[in-house]
């Protein structure tokens, strides 16, 4: 008996020992056959074929773990990514397969891994050595890998510039945050806008038509495609109430023009000179595509929206209504403003909409309850975050975004959304599909169902004075709640509670109320962003982090930026005419029109004065030009004077002024023909229209000037030597002219003067 037992235990010992041996062998094998080893061996093999340089053969490539040990450089991390990504800094591996691919671009030149590691930009779990764990796609790691454009969010940890070079998507996201007015409700640190992004609403009652306002409040993007205002999901009743309240804000001066009538045809002339089409879409082409600029809003349905009386006031002084608009204040006389308003009001109107509005039933008169409801809606929905309106409270505070990029993950409520639990996923979903993240209220089965729903609504806002439910059966109470919410506009008036148990009815009611803003007062509206926009904003939000580097070795302070905003008379004129809406001066303004930073060095003062009085197009093929403002003479004189003296860089063309006596215009002409300039610049009627015309011969502009009238010699010389130095984005080729050639060519071009212009003007003093 004991022998049998002994024999059995010996067999068990043998079997168990074999199992243990197998386990140990497995362990040894696992250590040897790690993922990274295979990758490094593949790299070593490939290295033999692709050595770093032709001269040095590939040295013996050691197969070992690799890491960037950065605990001492204040980054406090250890990154082992280069264990698998061995080829990351080997340019000859640009086309290899992951993980051996080299890093894209030349970022590793300025950010070498031994000083920066990898996780500072890419996040993930630096200490891990297998793929899923290293990429952070494991439970309990809250910062998964950022790839592609998402890494641009990390630039902000060290770079405090704006925009950060090499991070275009980040710049786009930051720009979107500013433009869409997020900071009206959210704090966002350095992205705070100084003023409200929406228009001031003080005269809104005198400005817009009621029906338009109703449509707009219900769905802004349907009313005006591309509208910045987000979608609040208001029902008809709610939108009507809000509109009722808004329409009570009237403006006396606007109302005083109610009966004025202007001359349509005269208005058309004014329109043509004002060149509205430069900034606004004002017509459709033969294929019904919109034509016009996109600096200002699309005006094709202007007549449906605004009243003519408002247009009159607006044209006289736009800045009274929209202090921060880009629209300049034209010098319209009262009659011109009236005529223009008549023209625009009658011309830009969609008759189908008008007919539909006429056919629709009459709106009932507004009741005081509706108006009160509208005011409450305005306060609660946070309209004050984007719009200024006298007498309104500030918008309710939304979550602070100043350091949202480094907020701990547990602060975010993902609810039942089926998305990865990470910050980028949360932001993206919030931008694109916010309804997925909306907290859902469900009445718990215990307790009084109707009571629970009632108390979770927003009684202080909607039902003040009617806060208690009457006693009675649950179904009656639920019915009362339904009626109350329909009256206040949260629920569609056509709904009715289905038959069923009280619990089922309560669920139905809760589900419908969850779909509106009834339970969640500060729900974020839907901006209807595209995927690209949502991604850009996600990146911008991720860049708002307190995870900055405190070591001065890594910090890159912001470049100093020159902001053009003088407090002198010129500045006053600029603010009136909004030159920077189209032109750029230093780093301010827009790139639509020419850069004026060195206008004084570029053009002759006389030319500038005449141009300001009567602008014209520089190319035969383009009819649009600077709008005709009809500046008073002293203003155009002053502006030309100012620019010629202030917007000057004396180093431009210094060489020309020093040696212009050595220039030969004949040689220059020969060069002009030889280099083929005529291919892009037309002269005397022949040539290309890519670049500006060298002789303008447009009949409307009798003072049409030629290049010798307009440009200064020093500028021409500097330009010919290196166009990109003066205007980086120009397509004028750099012909590598020698100094003498440039001088000759300049001399030739300066000889191209319009004798008529010269006759009427004083000869140019060469100031230097």
């Amino acid at each position, binding site marked *: *008996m004991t022998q049998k037992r002994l024999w059995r235990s010996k067999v068990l*010992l043998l079997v168990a020992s074999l199992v*243990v041996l197998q386990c*140990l062998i497995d362990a040894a094998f*696992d250590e040897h056959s790690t993922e990274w080893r295979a990758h490094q061996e593949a790299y070593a093999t490939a290295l033999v074929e692709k050595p770093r340089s032709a001269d040095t053969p590939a040295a013996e490539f050691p197969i070992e773990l690799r890491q960037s040990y950065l605990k001492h450089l204040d980054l406090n991390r250890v990154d082992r990514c280069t264990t698998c990504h061995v080829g990351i800094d080997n340019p000859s591996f640009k086309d290899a397969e992951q993980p051996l691919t080299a890093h894209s671009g030349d970022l590793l030149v300025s950010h070498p891994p031994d000083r920066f590691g990898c996780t500072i930009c890419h996040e993930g779990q630096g*200490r*891990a050595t297998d793929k899923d*764990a290293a990429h952070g796609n494991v439970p309990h*790691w809250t910062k998964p890998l950022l790839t592609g454009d998402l890494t641009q969010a990390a630039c902000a940890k060290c770079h405090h510039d704006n925009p950060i070079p090499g991070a275009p998507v980040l710049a786009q996201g930051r720009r979107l945050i500013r433009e869409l007015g997020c900071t009206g409700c959210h704090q966002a640190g350095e992205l705070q806008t100084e003023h409200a992004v929406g228009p001031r609403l003080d005269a809104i009652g005198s400005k817009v038509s009621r029906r338009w306002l109703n449509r707009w409040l219900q769905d802004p993007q349907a009313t005006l495609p591309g509208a910045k205002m987000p979608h609040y999901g208001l029902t008809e009743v709610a939108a009507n109430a809000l509109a009722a309240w808004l329409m009570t804000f009237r403006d006396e001066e606007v109302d005083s023009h109610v009966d004025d009538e202007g001359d349509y045809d005269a208005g058309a002339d004014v329109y043509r000179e004002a060149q509205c089409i430069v900034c606004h879409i004002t017509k459709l082409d033969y294929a019904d595509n919109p034509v016009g600029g996109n600096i200002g809003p699309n005006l094709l349905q202007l007549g449906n929206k605004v009243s003519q009386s408002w247009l009159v006031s607006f044209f006289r002084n736009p800045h009274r209504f929209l202090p921060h608009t880009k629209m300049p204040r034209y010098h319209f006389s009262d009659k011109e403003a009236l005529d223009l308003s008549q023209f625009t009001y009658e011309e830009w109107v969609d008759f189908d909409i008008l007919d539909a509005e006429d056919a629709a039933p009459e709106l009932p008169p507004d009741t005081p309850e509706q108006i009160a409801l509208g005011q409450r809606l305005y306060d609660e929905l946070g309209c004050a975050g984007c719009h200024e309106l006298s007498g309104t409270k500030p918008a309710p505070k939304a979550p602070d975004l100043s350091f949202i990029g480094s907020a701990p993950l*547990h602060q975010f409520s993902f609810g039942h959304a089926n998305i990865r639990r990470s910050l980028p996923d949360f932001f993206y979903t919030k931008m694109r599909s916010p309804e997925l993240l909306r907290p859902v209220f469900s009445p718990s089965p215990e307790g009084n169902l109707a009571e629970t729903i009632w108390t979770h609504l927003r009684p202080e806002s909607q039902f003040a004075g009617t806060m208690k439910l009457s006693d009675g059966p649950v179904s009656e109470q639920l019915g009362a709640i339904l009626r109350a919410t329909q009256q206040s506009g949260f629920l569609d008036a056509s709904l009715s509670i289905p038959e069923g148990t009280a619990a089922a009815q309560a669920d139905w009611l809760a589900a419908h109320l969850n779909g509106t803003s009834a339970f969640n007062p500060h729900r974020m509206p839907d901006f209807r962003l595209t995927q690209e926009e949502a991604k850009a904003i996600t990146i911008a939000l991720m860049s708002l982090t307190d995870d900055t580097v405190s070591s001065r070795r890594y910090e890159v302070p912001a470049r100093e930026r020159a902001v053009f905003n003088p407090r002198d008379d010129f500045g006053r004129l600029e603010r009136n005419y909004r030159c920077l809406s189209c032109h750029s001066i230093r780093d301010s303004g827009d790139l639509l029109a020419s850069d004026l930073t060195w206008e004084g060095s570029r053009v002759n003062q006389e030319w500038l004065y005449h141009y300001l009085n009567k602008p014209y197009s520089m190319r035969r093929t383009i009819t649009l030009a600077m709008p005709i403002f009809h500046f008073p003479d002293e203003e155009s004189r002053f502006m030309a004077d100012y620019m010629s003296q202030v917007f000057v860089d004396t180093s431009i063309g210094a060489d020309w002024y020093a040696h212009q006596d050595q220039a030969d215009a004949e040689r220059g002409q020969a060069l002009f023909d030889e280099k083929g300039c005529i291919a892009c610049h037309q002269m005397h009627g022949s040539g290309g229209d890519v670049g500006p015309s060298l002789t303008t011969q447009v009949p409307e502009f009798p003072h049409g000037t030629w290049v010798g009238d307009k440009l200064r010699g020093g500028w021409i010389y500097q330009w010919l030597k290196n166009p990109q130095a003066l205007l980086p984005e120009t397509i004028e080729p750099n012909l590598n002219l020698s100094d003498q050639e440039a001088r000759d060519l300049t001399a030739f071009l300066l000889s191209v003067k319009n004798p008529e212009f010269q006759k009427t003007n004083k000869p140019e003093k060469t100031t230097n």
Partner: protein
Amino acid sequence: MTTENTTSDEPSGDHPTPTPESGPGAWGQFLRNLRNSPRLFRDSVIRHGRPTSDRAASQAVFGNFFLHILPTRIHFRSLKFRTTLGLGVITLVLFFLLTATGIALMVYYKPTTDQAYDSMKDIQYLVPTGRYMRNIHRWSAHGMVACVLLHMARAFYVGAYKHPREFNWVIGMLLFVLTLALSFTGYLLPWDQLAFWAVTIGSEIAQSPRELTDALGITSWFDPGGAMKHLLLGSNHVGQEALSRFYLLHVMVLPLIMTVLLAVHFWRIRKDGGLAASRESSVESPKPDTAGTSNAKSSPLDSGPSTLDPSKTYGLMAVVRGRTPAVDRVMADTVPTYPHALFPIAALSMLTLAVVLILGHRIDAPLAEMANPAVPENPAKAPWYFLGLQELVSYSALMGGVVIPAIVVIGLMFVPYLDREREDIGVWFGNRRGRRVCVASAIFATWIVISLLAFTINVGWLRDWFPRIPQMVITFVNPGTFLLAVFVAWSLGTLKYTNSTRMGALATFTCFIVAFVILTYFATVHRGPNWHFYWSQADWPVH
């Protein structure tokens, strides 16, 4: 048949005295010694030759420092697997594994709050076989706690605590507490969210005497709770001090005490006559145990007192069978330890090792996010062996965390002194009556625990009906104390009904084990955030 070294021309270990005149003789001797040195070396280590005879087998055990804690001969009933299930061996093997892997982990683990978590990551991802070491350590720890519990149950149900083994039972209880302490101190070391909050809860339980002193208003000058928490943490909160303390306890102090107590535990097993078996008689020994004297009557199989009494505690070197008058039938029931005990022990050890290695290969030990004092886990659960306790703590911290465990441990320690019946030792549950008592107690305990849990969840407890009731009342009248009282009543009732202290003891222990299992299961599966009841984790509120 003894085998001696016959291959050399001289007896092993003997060297000829070199005579001055035997020059070539000494040289030849030297060469011969050099040639023989492997064999000589082997024979110096293993002095008894191959253990093919009983004598050599006994010598193999007796002469070996590591093995001589075992007797040279062992009763065949001690070898019966079903009696002990080898749980003691398994527990010991797991302890050795823990020590070995623990030492390996100590090479890379860094016990500071800013480096502990990172060093865990390094062990997992960087150190060769680090992942295994950690996994083996973790699964051995869980296994050891489970096996210690099972071993305790086995010892109880077999009656191995009875006289003369009472003291060993006490030592065993101390070892049990030490095992839990080791597991708990080790739990903090990874410094992740799991660890941090589990220890926070533990320290708050240590502070729970304040429940009483606060109610009495004496905390300002008598605060054992606060003192205990401070002793544990070295601070008001879990931080570097706690980590240093726990590390010291875990790697040095507790293992040392454990080793010493283990040595005493094994020593006592030998001195008390080996594993408990029903050959023990039912009469208490008149004198304390001294080596060489008879301290127990012989077994019923004996024809009478004998000098070769099986409960004697010195070992025989050999038994000569056959024709001498000193042959004793009882001795014939023993077998040499080598190989009849050593091979099963070796096999069981290897099997344990195999299971732990397989577990370590397949299932990774968890590591949550780094400890963050600002973000409590919800629910923050203790390790599984403390979850039953945590359930009781949810009723009253003092009672559930301090008093009831103390009563249970001390009560269990006391059992051998209260139950001194000597029948049916060495058999599971003793006899049929014992089996019936255990089954009845199990059913009763199951019913009462589940009913109590259902009651507290569906109906509530005192504070739901009397919101202003003083805390002291809750401390003394809560489901934990209720269970304790009920079990004590049941045990005493069983004792009276069956007229047997053993039956009472069986009832007590069964109630305790069943309640432990059910409460642990309940707190593991059915308790969610805010310690609310949920049918499953799928029902927890989402975030």
